[in-house]
């Protein structure tokens, strides 16, 4: 899933400063799941904006709506009436959702209320971990299902760097595991350490031709 974090309030207030009436648009998929842009967060941000704007933050000046997937034009289209009634849209969706919103309502300024941060999965309640870099050239078959491109801070393909902290923690953050120590342990458990002893040549960074575009071949 896509993980995002809310932008600092100051930045949001600056973006929407010229606009009196704003629609806060949430998304019910990834950003809802990571507690950033679902209906609940839309309500909180909306209330916070009204508090920030004081008297100007009249209740009628913040409109709230959440669609199931903001990256789908058809679903965003459902908001047409609401969008037409406001001066600007503040989207709490991921970058893809925000861009869809901006495309569907070309004549309205659309602003991001969140920063899209990574692809990941929940580690536990309220904690998400980046674990996919969308490189287009999946390497996980060789590393026991742990991505060294993302779980290693330097994206090394051939083993840990020399900076690993005591107990197998990452050079840059003692709260994060060294990806290569994780890979080693996983492969050791599976009796497949020979995979780690192989040399892997430099990665093909053009596996996805940027900007990425995929056309399904099947109809």
């Amino acid at each position: 899933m896509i993980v995002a974090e809310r932008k600092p309030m100051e930045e949001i207030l600056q973006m929407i400063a010229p606009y009196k009436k704003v629609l806060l648009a949430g998304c019910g998929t990834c950003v809802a799941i990571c507690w950033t842009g679902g209906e609940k967060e839309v309500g909180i941000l909306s209330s916070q904006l009204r508090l920030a704007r004081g008297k100007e933050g009249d209740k009628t000046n913040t409109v709230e709506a959440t669609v199931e997937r903001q990256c789908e034009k058809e679903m965003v289209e459902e908001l047409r009436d609401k969008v037409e009634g406001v001066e600007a849209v503040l989207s709490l969706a991921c970058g893809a959702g925000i861009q869809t919103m901006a495309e569907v309502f070309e004549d309205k300024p659309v602003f991001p209320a969140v920063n899209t941060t990574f692809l990941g999965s929940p580690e536990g309640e309220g904690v998400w971990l980046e674990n996919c870099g969308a490189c287009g050239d999946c390497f996980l078959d060789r590393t026991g299902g742990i991505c060294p491109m993302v779980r290693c801070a330097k994206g090394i393909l051939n083993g840990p760097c020399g900076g690993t902290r005591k107990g197998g923690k990452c050079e840059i953050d003692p709260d994060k595991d060294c990806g290569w120590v994780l890979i080693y342990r996983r492969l050791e458990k599976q009796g497949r350490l020979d995979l780690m002893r192989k040399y892997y040549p430099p990665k093909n960074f053009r596996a996805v031709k940027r900007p990425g575009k995929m056309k399904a071949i099947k109809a």
Partner: protein
Amino acid sequence: MPVKMGIFLCNCGGSLKNIDFPKVRENLEDLEDVAFVDISHNLCLEEGEKAITSRTLTENINRVVIAACSPEFCERNFARLLEKLRLNPNLLSLANIREQCSWAHEGDVTRKALELIMMAVDKARLLQPVERKEVAVNKEALVVGGGFCGMKSSLELSQLGIRPTLVEREPTLGGKLKELEGFYGSQREAMIKAVEKEENIEILTSAEVIGVEGKIGDFRVRIRRETKEILRTFGAIVFATGYKTEITAGDFPLKLGINIISQKRLAQMLQAPTLEASPETIGFIFDLSDENSRFPTLATLNNALAVKQRWGSEVYVFCKNVKVDSEGVEKLYREAREKGVMFLKFDENPKISADDGRVRIDAGDTLLGEEIALTCDLVVAEEKLLPAEGTEGLSSVLKIRTDSQGFYQEENVHLYPVSSERKGIFFVGNCRGDLDLGRVLADISSVVAIVHELLSPGKIMVEVERVKADPQKCVACLTCIRACPHRAIQLVQIDNEKVVAEISQLACDKCGICAAICPAKAIKFEGYSDDQILAQIEAIGVS
């Protein structure tokens, strides 16, 4: 159906003098949806009940607002009354104008009282009926652990007509009783026999619980017996998995050897038919690291007496304090003294050293104020009570946490010591901590009473959808499942496609944590829903 509200104001026998009731009524009467506003003297007495009954029926109202004393006193009664009047009890909204208004302030509080009632009125408009229905519960109980607690709980449950299935990991029943001699040991055979004789109790030995799914009234339990796996269903589960003991050396060098042994080893020696030479002098020692545990005193007294009886050895007990404040222990202590067991009390941990194949104990006796040196043939060392082997594994099977020492965590150590965080699963005895005998017996009585009350009617009344996840809004993010303290939520498939969270009304304890945390605002807690809470907030200061 449009909202039609009746408001009853109670002036508590005319005692709430700082509220101008007629004025309150005046302000409420013209509100939208309000059919009438009545002032009564004592709504909690028969006259009040009659007044509510007649007005409710004649006016055919569908929301009842009562401004009276604290809901802690009156809520239950008024809810019952509504039920009698064929009105769903959830259509009742209360304003606490006595404890939290009239009594809490000096001077005229009419305005505040009016506001509190307005809050209740605005909430009442949004209330929806919550249907209730009877759900059948499985009347059988599972008791895990065939030691003293498990056997006694099973016996008592079966005497009350509940059919317990008793699961024991070992090939035979008895648990720790097998390791005890003397008074407690002597209870062993009789108890096992009684359990085995009881037709109502099904005994599964060499068996272990490996999975618990479902909820109170309907637990599906997987049990592995030798190589076979059995699937059974139970209404409630009682864990009596006991403890293990470990010698604690503290910070002084006690090494387990031939001369320094555990209570368990001593019991084995006492049970052995012959002994080459019975020890002449035996020293028991405890309080070296943990002074609070009651367990070493009991084990020591029990076994010291057994030693006296069996071998007639000289027995010395070294400790800081003999803890006799548990049931029956004082008596054992007196008996031990009478039989000649010597008690020596130290302040600083004694020194223990080897002395020509025997063990020398050097201790300062606080009573005599002297240094005492004693050489023993055998020293029985202090033991600490720890969670039984497998507690950790079982707790993950049960999805129930353990405390800092690894014992099962009670739901609330003071209020509900035998209840776990999962409704319908209980812990008794030493699997939930280092308890003295009195506490263990109290645990057994209370768990038996609770399980009996729960299962014997064969059915329980549950609210159908007090807390509900809207399948249209649920995004199956698992947030509520991870957050629910009672493990009452699971993912289910609806219409063969969408996977959504479903809240079991049986297991749910109505805390509302899920409703607050749901990122999609999919969970509604009727009576405490967002709009009902916000309606109260918005009502403040409007009057």
